[in-house]
């Protein structure tokens, strides 16, 4: 008996998680990925990773500070955030996350403070407000022990894996949204997080005028590994789910079959990923032969950042448009207010402001693995001739 049905009457179901969630997932992924990029030099003492680590730490602290703001804003009752601790429980991934997040935040702040402290101490005698801030933040002139940085750094790395696990699991356990309900979502968040972080580093390397070619080649390698990992995860997701009529792969195929906008999204996502991968390979093999290419890798960084943000937008926002109990797809126009555009722009604005404030008051370019003020060797710009005061031209 073949029949066709038309849904005459059904309520519209609006999205429940707003773009704030995308901002949180984006920033927290940048946070943990950049922490791992800062780790080789600042925690494990690998000197040739120091320029990368200095940039990574700037990105890491700023993202770590702003991410919880976006998360709080996604609550409909943000002032009740203390309920998370008054009524904490172990059966909700979100509750587990609410315990891990502050621990992670404080460990990152501790690590960053120690890495910047010798340079801050060197600035104690600086005139005016800069000297005041340096004296105030550096808390005395005692040396910063390396071993303490290793301990705090390893603790931060441990908590960062907790963040990776909880942010992924929180979404992946939701059976009601088949597109989310896959074991492959958490590793994909991590892989795209590293893609985005590597991209951001390429961009920061350019806009901060560090223009360090070692940073570029290290980040291109990270990007290559991360894109290959993401491709492997995507392939495993498809192959593992292709026979399951209820799974996330089936839901994805159905969405692509019946929705023009999902088809466009899938196509755009695939093109972006291919462009990023080919571009990374090209830069990796050609920058050594043609050093002039170094001044263009930041473009690849923009593509990577776009890919990482778009992945989170599609996963967290677009998936909520797929009706699960009624027919078709729900329409969602991004509202202009704080639950929409203003929230997105505001989060990025806050992030930029935090980075600029740090840049204004903290000699982050001289971050190092502990020590005392006299150890400070000013950061050298390998490619640029700028000396002394940093320029932002």
């Amino acid at each position, binding site marked *: 008996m073949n029949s066709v049905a038309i849904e005459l009457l059904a309520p519209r179901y609006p999205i429940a998680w707003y773009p704030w969630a995308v901002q949180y997932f984006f920033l927290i992924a940048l946070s943990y990925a950049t922490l791992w990029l800062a780790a080789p030099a600042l925690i494990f003492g690998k000197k040739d990773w120091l320029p990368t680590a200095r940039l990574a730490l700037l990105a890491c602290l700023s993202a770590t500070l702003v991410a919880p703001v976006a998360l709080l804003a996604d609550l409909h009752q943000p002032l009740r955030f203390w309920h998370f601790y008054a009524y904490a429980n172990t059966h909700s991934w979100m509750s587990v996350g609410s315990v891990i997040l502050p621990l992670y935040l404080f460990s990152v702040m501790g690590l960053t403070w120690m890495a910047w402290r010798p340079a801050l101490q060197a600035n104690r005698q600086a005139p005016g407000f800069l000297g005041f801030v340096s004296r105030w933040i550096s808390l005395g002139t005692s040396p910063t022990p390396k071993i303490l940085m290793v301990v705090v750094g390893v603790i931060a790395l441990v908590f960062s894996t907790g963040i990776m696990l909880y942010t992924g699991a929180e979404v992946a*356990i939701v059976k009601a949204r088949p597109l989310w309900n896959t074991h492959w979502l958490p590793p994909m968040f991590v892989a795209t997080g590293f893609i985005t972080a590597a991209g951001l580093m390429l961009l920061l390397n350019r806009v901060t005028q560090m223009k360090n070619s070692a940073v570029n080649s290290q980040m291109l390698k990270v990007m290559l590994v991360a894109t290959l990992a993401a491709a492997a995860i995507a392939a495993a997701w498809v192959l593992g789910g292709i026979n399951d009529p209820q799974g996330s792969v089936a839901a994805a195929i159905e969405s692509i079959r019946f929705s023009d906008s999902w088809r466009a999204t899938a196509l755009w996502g695939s093109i972006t990923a291919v462009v990023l991968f080919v571009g990374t390979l090209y830069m990796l093999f050609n920058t050594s032969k043609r050093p002039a290419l170094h001044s263009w890798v930041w473009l690849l960084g923009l593509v990577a950042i776009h890919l990482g943000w778009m992945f989170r937008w599609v996963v967290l926002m677009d998936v909520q448009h797929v009706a699960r109990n009624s027919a078709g797809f729900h329409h969602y126009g991004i509202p202009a207010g704080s639950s929409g555009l203003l929230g997105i722009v505001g989060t990025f604005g806050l992030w930029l402001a935090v980075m600029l404030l740090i840049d204004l008051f903290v000699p982050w370019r001289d971050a190092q693995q502990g020590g005392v003020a006299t150890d400070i060797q000013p950061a050298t710009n390998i490619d640029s001739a700028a000396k002394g005061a940093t320029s932002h031209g």
Partner: protein
Amino acid sequence: MDLMRRSLLGQLARLSAGVALVPLSSIATAGINAQPARREGDPTKRYGMLIDLRQCIGCQACTVSCHIENAAPMGKFRTTVSQYEVEDQASGALATFMLPRLCNHCENPPCVPVCPVEATFQRQDGIVVVDSDRCVGCAYCVNACPYDARFINDKTQTADKCTFCAHRLEAGLLPACVESCVGGARIIGDMRDPNSQISQMIAEYGEQLMVLQPEKNTVPQVFYLGMDERFVTRPVAEAALLEVLDDQGKEMGYEFRGH
């Protein structure tokens, strides 16, 4: 790709995935996301609802009376009746199918364990409720419910849902939707009492009763009599109502497809 090859590839992927993810998934299933203990409510009762679709005429009296009783904000519903036009392709014959929806007060409710502050909980009589003084409005439960039974109440900014009108049940009254149903299609009662109407109807119709999305393993406690199995999972239907948007993408109104 032929089926054999597809299944072989699938097996291979599952094998490699399995090795990597076994410890992860066992952590996820043990403890975290398990149902917390039920609290409050009468432990000697288990409320459930049976909806006799043969009696439903789609008048939406339940939708309206619920809306008034529970003061839900405009456009959000604790219960409503979805309506479908079904056409037999061979004969061209048309039929209308009504599907009243509400919270299923599942035996294994996916909305409860996700709540980070235990604001939503299941009472010992099976009713799933929200403590709106404790709810932080994270909307995790709204996403976790496969039945779209939950929403964020714009007035309270907390999660809202059908409570089987627990406040009325406690006062010896029927839920608003049951009270107002012109066809007597909604039957609520204590399923632990063998003499209740619902228990007797469950015993009488047994196999004929269906629940929504049984494959989600939520074990719903709202049973449908006279159900068409094509509507048990997400209905394979075309949405008839289209939003009309202006140049800025803002909603202006609705129109029916094809008009």
